[in-house]
């Protein structure tokens, strides 16, 4: 903590630059943009989980007065069946275009089939009802294990399981098989004193951002297109839309609105290409906003999964072997986060023998999208539960057991690389030393602990820094601010410049106003875009020093930048009054023109993060209701640039994990229709469900960043499920293996464990 004071601004809790806009309703989110003469676009969605689209007759809808355009899958050009770069993403464009608008088949209930643009919402709605779709309903499959079975309804007749040698000839819903190995798991189990084996499941959960998807497109007759949309990455939106609609990137300018939450779910396109296509056909701007129901039915939740864990340990607590199988639902198209799920599963631990197999499985559900540490929470739910079972069985404190097996510098992971400097041990020790863990568990309550790991990412960022005529500074970058990144970027720029934070104004620029920026995702912005901002600011400082050198007629090496002004590097240089930013700005025109700085980079070296969560809860044995009394999230956060927003990431991630653990799930009927597409029955935590969420920020600076930044947003969603499951196991003696641990499910499990009560 004392180290933090090295900085004047970094590590302080300043008001965010967009604060006033966001507390007064001024800030404009996706649905808040309008253009004169805009039309309302609406989507017709499949009522079937799986059906061949034999024909679509839009003639009546198109003839309805007020309808200006209708589009179907035929309006979107076919795309190659191969992975291609779109922006910086690798995607199968054949699948992306089909997810945006179905072609030959509807693959899930809610799949977009057609869309209309009309003068009013009511006309658009009526037009949808006039579109006649001739479906041939096919058998469907929802569950991941069912989808893997022989004889399951096949979603894609061309799909063969990748990663299997020899290549299979038969079509399968298993898109890919992955395998990781370290040592010899079978031999490892031979050395174990205890072996525990369990199967776990999770249900798909939605990111649950409060702001629905929204887009406003304006296509001009000359081919130029403007788009306003709520997204985690407007450059990604540009990339996808240009690919799907055969536009040049220079023809499409995308302006991001303020974004009302994303958590990974706003890194792909849904409405955007449709709004553009409708606008192109109608010759007018088209605005589209999803209803909450559409958000649930048609935008990506994360995978549900099935995980089998076998773990062996010696009496002293040494974990000697783990064998893990992970099967994740990808939704209707291949591409679940099964890779990271497999890799993260045992990443917290230094274990000699590890074998992990993963399956990427399609089924008749909406295509999954990223959600905070994609895939990791699912395998961690299983692995961390089993680690807790080992601790229980051996009567070892769960943090001590983890310390005994903790990954550290030099640990070779099961997926290949050897860890450099990491903070798992420090995080466990901080958890052990936390006021929460040191406190006694209240009578009637029980305590659970679990850990989590995420890689974090860097990737492409661009930034610019401009000095205004009065010496105030504008920082321009291209990442939508989803949780306070303007503040953290401005803090780093102010620190570099040595000027007041309030003199630095950070701006989120559109795709035409700054170079490429990868999505706001993977907790990369403060790290990677932060690095770009620091470099752009340093570039600008270099110029400021040059201007001072010119004015003083000295060599530029004789000028230093300190506390917001150019100073002679020593008395030998000569006696010069320091030149402030304001003074240098005032004379800029006479010393060489405007003073700007730029930087572009592919940031490498995002340091991995570890988290440990502690929960105290009680279970009402009569109802199966869990009440969380105390919760602490401990995490290795690198340097907390703005501690409040770092704490906020830990608290928000923990809350989402608590929802995942206790109540959130997609519920389907026998026909494959989603039964709970709303906030009433998709039960995200409300304020009265939660206690305060205490945080412990373990600051192990990341050497790859000038301020030691490490991504912090992913890790906190990983530990909550197993921490809660373990606390419940310790409270009741019943180990839950299926999420969510909803009251009916827990009650049934408790009753099954005590047959006498059930018989009553």
């Amino acid at each position: 903590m004392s180290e933090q004071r090295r900085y004047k601004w970094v590590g302080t809790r300043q008001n965010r630059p967009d604060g006033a806009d966001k507390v007064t309703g001024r800030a404009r989110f996706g649905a808040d943009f309008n253009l004169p003469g805009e039309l309302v676009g609406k989507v017709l969605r499949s009522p079937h989980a799986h059906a061949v689209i034999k024909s679509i007759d839009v003639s009546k809808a198109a003839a309805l007065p007020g309808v200006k355009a209708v589009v179907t899958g035929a309006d979107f050009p076919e795309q190659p069946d191969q992975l291609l770069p779109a922006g910086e993403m690798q995607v199968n464009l054949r699948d992306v275009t089909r997810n945006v608008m179905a072609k030959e088949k509807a693959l899930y209930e809610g799949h977009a089939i057609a869309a209309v643009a009309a003068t009013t919402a009511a006309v658009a709605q009526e037009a949808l009802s006039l579109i006649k779709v001739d479906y041939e309903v096919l058998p469907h499959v929802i569950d991941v294990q069912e989808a893997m079975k022989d004889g399951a309804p096949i979603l894609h007749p061309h799909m063969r399981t990748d990663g299997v040698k020899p290549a299979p000839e038969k079509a399968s819903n298993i898109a890919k098989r992955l395998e990781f190995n370290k040592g010899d798991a079978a031999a490892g189990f031979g050395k174990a004193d205890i072996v525990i084996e369990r199967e776990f499941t999770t249900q798909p959960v939605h990111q649950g951002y409060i702001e629905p998807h929204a887009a406003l497109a304006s296509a001009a007759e000359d081919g130029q297109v403007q788009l306003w949309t709520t997204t985690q990455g407007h450059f990604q939106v540009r990339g996808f839309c240009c690919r799907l609609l055969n536009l040049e990137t220079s023809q499409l300018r995308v302006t991001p609105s303020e974004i009302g939450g994303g958590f990974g779910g706003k890194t792909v396109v849904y409405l955007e290409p449709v709004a553009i296509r409708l606008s192109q056909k109608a010759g007018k701007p088209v605005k589209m906003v999803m209803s909450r129901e559409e958000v649930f039915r048609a935008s990506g939740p994360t995978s549900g999964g099935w995980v089998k864990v076998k773990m062996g340990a010696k009496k002293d607590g040494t974990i000697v072997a783990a064998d893990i199988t992970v099967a994740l639902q990808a939704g209707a198209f291949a591409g679940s986060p099964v890779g990271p799920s497999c890799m993260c599963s045992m990443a917290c631990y230094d274990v000699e023998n590890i074998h992990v197999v993963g399956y990427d499985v399609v089924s008749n559900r909406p295509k999954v999208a990223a959600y905070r540490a994609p895939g990791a929470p699912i395998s961690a739910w299983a692995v961390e539960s089993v680690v807790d079972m080992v601790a229980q069985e051996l009567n070892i404190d769960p943090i001590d057991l983890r310390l005994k097996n903790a990954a550290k510098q030099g640990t070779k992971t099961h997926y290949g690389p050897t860890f450099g400097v990491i903070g798992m041990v420090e995080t466990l020790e901080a958890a052990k030393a936390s006021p929460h863990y040191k406190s006694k568990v209240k009578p009637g309550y029980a305590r659970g602990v679990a850990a989590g790991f995420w890689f974090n990412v860097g990737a492409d960022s661009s930034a610019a820094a401009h000095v205004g005529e009065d010496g105030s500074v504008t920082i321009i970058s291209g990442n939508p601010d989803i949780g306070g990144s303007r503040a953290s970027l401005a803090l780093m720029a102010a620190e570099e410049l040595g000027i007041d934070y309030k003199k630095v104004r950070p701006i989120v620029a559109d795709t035409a106003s700054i170079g490429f920026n990868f999505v706001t995702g993977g907790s990369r912005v403060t790290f990677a875009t932060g690095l770009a901002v620091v470099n752009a600011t340093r570039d600008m400082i270099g110029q400021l020093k040059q201007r001072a050198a010119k004015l003083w007629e000295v060599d530029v090496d004789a000028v230093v930048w300190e506390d917001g002004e150019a100073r002679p590097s020593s008395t030998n240089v000569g006696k010069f009054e320091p030149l402030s930013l304001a003074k240098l700005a005032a004379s800029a025109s006479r010393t060489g023109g405007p003073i700007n700085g730029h930087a572009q980079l592919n940031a490498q070296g995002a340091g991995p993060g570890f988290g440990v969560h502690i929960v105290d809860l009680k279970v009402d044995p009569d109802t199966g209701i869990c009440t969380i009394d105390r919760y602490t999230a401990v995490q290795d956060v690198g340097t907390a640039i703005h501690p409040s927003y770092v704490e906020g990431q830990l608290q928000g991630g923990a809350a989402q994990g608590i929802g995942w653990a206790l109540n959130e799930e997609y519920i389907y009927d026998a026909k494959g229709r989603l039964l709970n597409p709303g906030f009433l029955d998709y039960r995200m935590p409300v304020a009265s469900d939660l206690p305060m969420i205490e945080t412990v920020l373990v600051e192990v600076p990341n050497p790859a960043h000038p301020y030691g930044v490490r991504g912090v947003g992913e890790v906190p969603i990983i530990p909550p499920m197993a921490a809660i499951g373990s606390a419940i196991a310790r409270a009741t003696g019943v180990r839950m293996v299926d999420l969510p641990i909803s009251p009916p499910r827990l009650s049934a499990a408790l009753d099954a464990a005590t047959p006498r009560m059930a018989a009553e």
Partner: protein
Amino acid sequence: MARVILTYSFAKQFADGQTEIELPGRTVRQLIRALEARFPALEGHLEGDIAVVIDGVVHQNALLEEVAEDSEVAFIPPIGGG
């Protein structure tokens, strides 16, 4: 010689099951070329949808990055994030 590491299934599919291979190369691209020369089946599979970990540091897209004599270079599935 850098130590190149492939995941188990990737190695089984394309590299005769070899997960650790000592190879000459001063950049990631040189290592990829050397790998492809030894395992022709690998061609085209190392420059697309893959992350590269050089001495414990994850690179989302790496091609020209320099690697040291004793570097460990692992090719792993790509990593996104929320």
